[in-house]
């Protein structure tokens, strides 16, 4: 997916991805572990606050319970005289500022009701009888519950009209008098306690800016809550229903069941994600809750995570700049190199390459480019030189070829006035001039000399050497008249002062046209064949003789052969026998013999030579030959009938 992007953007993109991953992971870890730790801490803290508050309330309530039981004991002792009871009540209220009022309701028999009540009104204590024509206490919970349950009861909180609309809670206890074997209800002693102090206490509990505490009764009614409209009127369950939050009902049931807990929820004040800790107040079955907003709870973690993210982002930014810089240091020289090579490619090898300092890969690449340019330049110069040299060689070869060709007789028929024989020769110089040559000349009226040779070297030196050999040969032969002696003298002449150590293979023969007798000598050359008139091919006898010109004082043997009229004497150089095809197979002497065998009879020697050449060429099939192809064919016809 990145293949199509340029290096710079690719590096930046990959850095961006990698960096974001690292920064994101670190921030995530930070947040996760941090928030877990904080949540753990907060759980303990919130629960302990809830428990602490619960126990504070408990202490006050237990105090009230104790005061009331003391009061009840005194009422019991006082033989229930109404006047005495009122005094005790007044005494109790006066001494206990947390108590707003206290009453003693005489056990009602339905008609007569009497309940002295002492209560605060400003700084004063007032007395009245709770029982009136319109108020019959025997239908109200504060009286009936302790009577029917036969135990003290904390009432549900209520707003007291008589108490100026203050939030109150009542504690009532039944009072009994022993009667016979059992006991008889004497009355119910009760006191009401203002919950203003509780409201103040709970308001003082702050968790951050938005955290708050609230208190619910045993029935789940709100006693203290920041939403004043909830107090007394709503219960945990009605609020849950009204808010359409069934999960709050479940939590509410846990609270009223006296459980302690710490749970996440959306609070009912701001609907923000929060945590709620709750703990019971055992005396009354109430439950204290502390609500902490998650945003505040996790504020330190969020801030930490934010810092981590910010530092990460800053580092990331720096990383990005560095990456951009690195990308530039790579791409700029590469681009310069690219432009320079484009110029190079156009052939301008002198155009300067950018100078890239340093010891990195790019610098090495630039260096390589520079070397390449120098090498290219050098090779170009070399190429020019070699091309020139080659051209020179070509022209030299051309010269050598013309030398070679000018040295061999090429006019056929060479002796049109001699009917005793027919002769044809051919020399196909190889591209590199093989140094082959042939010659024939009349030694006198009746004798013909035929020679064929192959100089060891190639090219111009070979051509020149060939010229020398031919000149010598012709000159010496006229002196010596014997092929062996001719070769011997030629050898000595050539070996002397032969600085180039060149030599030549040579075959020469002298033939008496009158009788067909032939004398010959061979200096390391391929032995010629004689084609009989009947198609037989025979090789002439091998004689002693080494290459000519290599070493002085060599002796050459001389052989004798007689040709009958019609026979063909066939001479050739190793260019024929060693002609090579594409598969590097040699044409070989067998193939040559086969070719010759096909040519018995009266065919002309020129046809014979041409046929052999054709065969060789078809064998080599275009493979370039390293040596010249040279053939001489001589047909002895004998003397004509006179």
């Amino acid at each position, binding site marked *: 997916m990145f293949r199509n992007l340029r290096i710079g953007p690719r590096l930046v993109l990959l850095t961006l991805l990698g960096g974001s991953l690292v920064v994101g992971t670190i921030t995530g870890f930070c947040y996760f572990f941090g928030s877990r730790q904080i949540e753990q801490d907060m759980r303990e803290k919130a629960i302990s606050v809830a428990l602490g508050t619960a126990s504070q309330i408990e202490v006050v309530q237990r105090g009230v319970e104790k005061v009331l039981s003391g009061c009840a004991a005194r009422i019991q002792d006082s033989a229930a005289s109404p006047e005495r009871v009122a005094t005790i009540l007044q005494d109790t209220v006066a001494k206990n500022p947390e108590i707003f009022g206290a009453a003693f309701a005489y056990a009602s028999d339905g008609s007569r009701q009497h309940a002295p009540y002492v209560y605060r009104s400003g700084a004063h204590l007032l007395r009245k009888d709770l029982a009136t024509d*319109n*108020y*019959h206490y025997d*239908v*109200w*919970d504060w009286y*009936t*519950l302790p009577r*029917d*349950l036969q135990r003290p*009861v904390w009432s*549900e909180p*209520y*707003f007291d009209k008589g108490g100026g*609309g203050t939030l109150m809670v009542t504690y009532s206890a039944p009072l009994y008098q022993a009667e016979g074997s059992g006991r008889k209800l004497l009355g119910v002693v009760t006191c009401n306690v203002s919950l203003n102090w509780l409201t103040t206490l709970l308001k003082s509990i702050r968790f951050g800016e938005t955290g708050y505490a609230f208190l619910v009764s*045993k*029935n*789940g*009614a709100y006693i203290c809550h920041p939403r004043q409209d909830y107090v*007394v*009127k*709503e*219960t*945990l*369950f*009605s*609020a849950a*229903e*009204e808010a359409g939050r069934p999960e709050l*009902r479940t939590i*509410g*049931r846990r609270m*009223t069941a006296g459980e302690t807990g710490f749970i996440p929820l959306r609070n009912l004040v701001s609907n923000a994600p929060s945590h709620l800790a709750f703990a019971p107040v055992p005396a009354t079955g109430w439950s204290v809750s502390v609500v902490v907003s998650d945003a505040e709870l996790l504020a330190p973690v969020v801030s930490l995570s934010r810092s981590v993210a910010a530092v990460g982002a800053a580092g990331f930014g720096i990383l990005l700049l560095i990456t951009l810089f690195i990308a530039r240091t790579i791409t700029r020289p590469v681009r310069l190199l690219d432009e320079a090579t484009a110029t190079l490619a156009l052939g301008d090898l002198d155009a300067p390459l950018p100078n890239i300092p340093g010891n990195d890969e790019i610098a090495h690449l630039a260096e390589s480019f520079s070397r390449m340019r120098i090498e290219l330049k050098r090779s170009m110069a070399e190429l020019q030189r070699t091309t020139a040299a080659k051209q020179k060689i070509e022209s030299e070869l051309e010269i050598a070829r013309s030398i070679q060709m000018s040295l061999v007789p090429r006019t056929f028929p060479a002796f049109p006035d001699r009917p005793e024989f027919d002769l044809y020769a051919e020399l196909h110089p190889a591209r590199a001039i093989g140094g082959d040559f042939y010659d024939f000349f009349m030694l006198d009226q009746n004798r013909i000399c035929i020679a064929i040779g192959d100089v060891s070297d190639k090219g111009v030196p070979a051509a020149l050497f060939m010229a020398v050999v031919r000149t010598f040969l012709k000159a010496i032969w006229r002196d010596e008249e014997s092929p062996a002696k001719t070769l011997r003298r030629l050898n000595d002449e050539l070996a002397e002062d032969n600085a180039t150590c060149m030599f030549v293979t040579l075959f020469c023969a002298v033939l008496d046209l009158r009788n067909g007798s032939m004398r010959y000598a061979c200096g390391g050359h391929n032995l010629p064949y004689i084609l009989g008139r009947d198609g037989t091919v025979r090789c002439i006898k091998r004689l002693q003789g080494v290459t000519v010109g290599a070493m002085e004082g060599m002796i050459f043997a001389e052989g004798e052969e007689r040709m009958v009229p019609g026979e063909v004497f066939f001479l050739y150089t190793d260019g024929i026998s060693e002609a090579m095809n594409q598969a590097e197979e040699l044409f070989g002497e067998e193939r040559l013999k086969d070719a010759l065998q096909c040519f018995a009879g009266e065919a002309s020697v020129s046809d014979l030579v041409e046929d052999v050449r054709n065969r060789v060429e078809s064998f080599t099939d275009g493979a370039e030959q390293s040596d010249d192809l040279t053939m001489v064919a001589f047909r002895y016809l004998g003397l004509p009938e006179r």
Partner: protein
Amino acid sequence: MMTRFILILSTCIVLAVPLLFPATNSPAATERPPAPVTITLQWLPQSQFAGYYVALDKGFYRKRGLEVKIRHAGPEQDSLASLVDGSADFATTFLTPALRRRDSRLPLINIAQIVHRSTTMLIARKQSGISSIMDLNGKRISLWKGDLGVPFQAVLTSHEITPSRIFDQNYSVNLFLLGGVDACSAMYYNEYNMLYQTGLNEGDLVTFPLRDYGADIPEDGIYCLESTWNNRPQQCRAFRQATLEGWRYALAHPEEALHSVMKRVFDAHLPTNRSHMRWMLEKILPAIIPGTGDSWQAGVLSPDDYAKAVELMKRQGIIHRAPSYESFHPTGGSHVP
């Protein structure tokens, strides 16, 4: 002869007036100042009375020429007492106390039966092992005192249930909540939901609606003294119609009705809440406006229900005699719209 002539003449004049002044066709009611009327509802403001509040707030009384003042009785005051002392023209109460007071010679007339079905029930905790009404035998139960307790007593008697002890139940279900009794009395539309609002789930409770146990006694009705009915029957009918219109409106627009209720609940500083009032409205409406399967008519006390209630009260020895259906509920047979 003379008298007859005058009568014819006056008739002619009466008939001629609209012909002479055809443009002034305003109803006579609006021309007269609205008549001040007071009704005392038997309990503190709550959805039990939503129809009256709606009729007042939407002007249903006013458009019938009534300037209605709503008063509330309560735990310390009996609504019928306001009829006796003349402080109110109308008062609402259950059928049972009305019959009892009629028996003790208070000349009460039912001008409209509002709540036709019994909404009362006995509630127990499933936990206490009570699953059928017979399981209440030997258990502690709390029952409302007085007239409200009559159908409960009747059911206990007819099923031969003898609780170990019967406690007086007054204005709260706290004795039940604190475990003082195994079962308590409740209105489906009120106490049942109060228990629910203390966190008790439906599955925690087992209920015995009295209507399922042969005591389907109609509840709220509108009453006035015989004299009021005799002297101002049109006012009585107007009040009845306007109130029923109020209830129909409440059925169609429950949130608006709830608003009328909550306004009064708030003004009275009552320790209750909107979701409770919504429940109450939802549960009481089917007993006021008949549904497709109901055989009774809104506002009309069915003769059968009346006969059953009388029979039950007599059987319980609470009353000894009862007026005829027609004299107790004169609007019933007349089929006034």
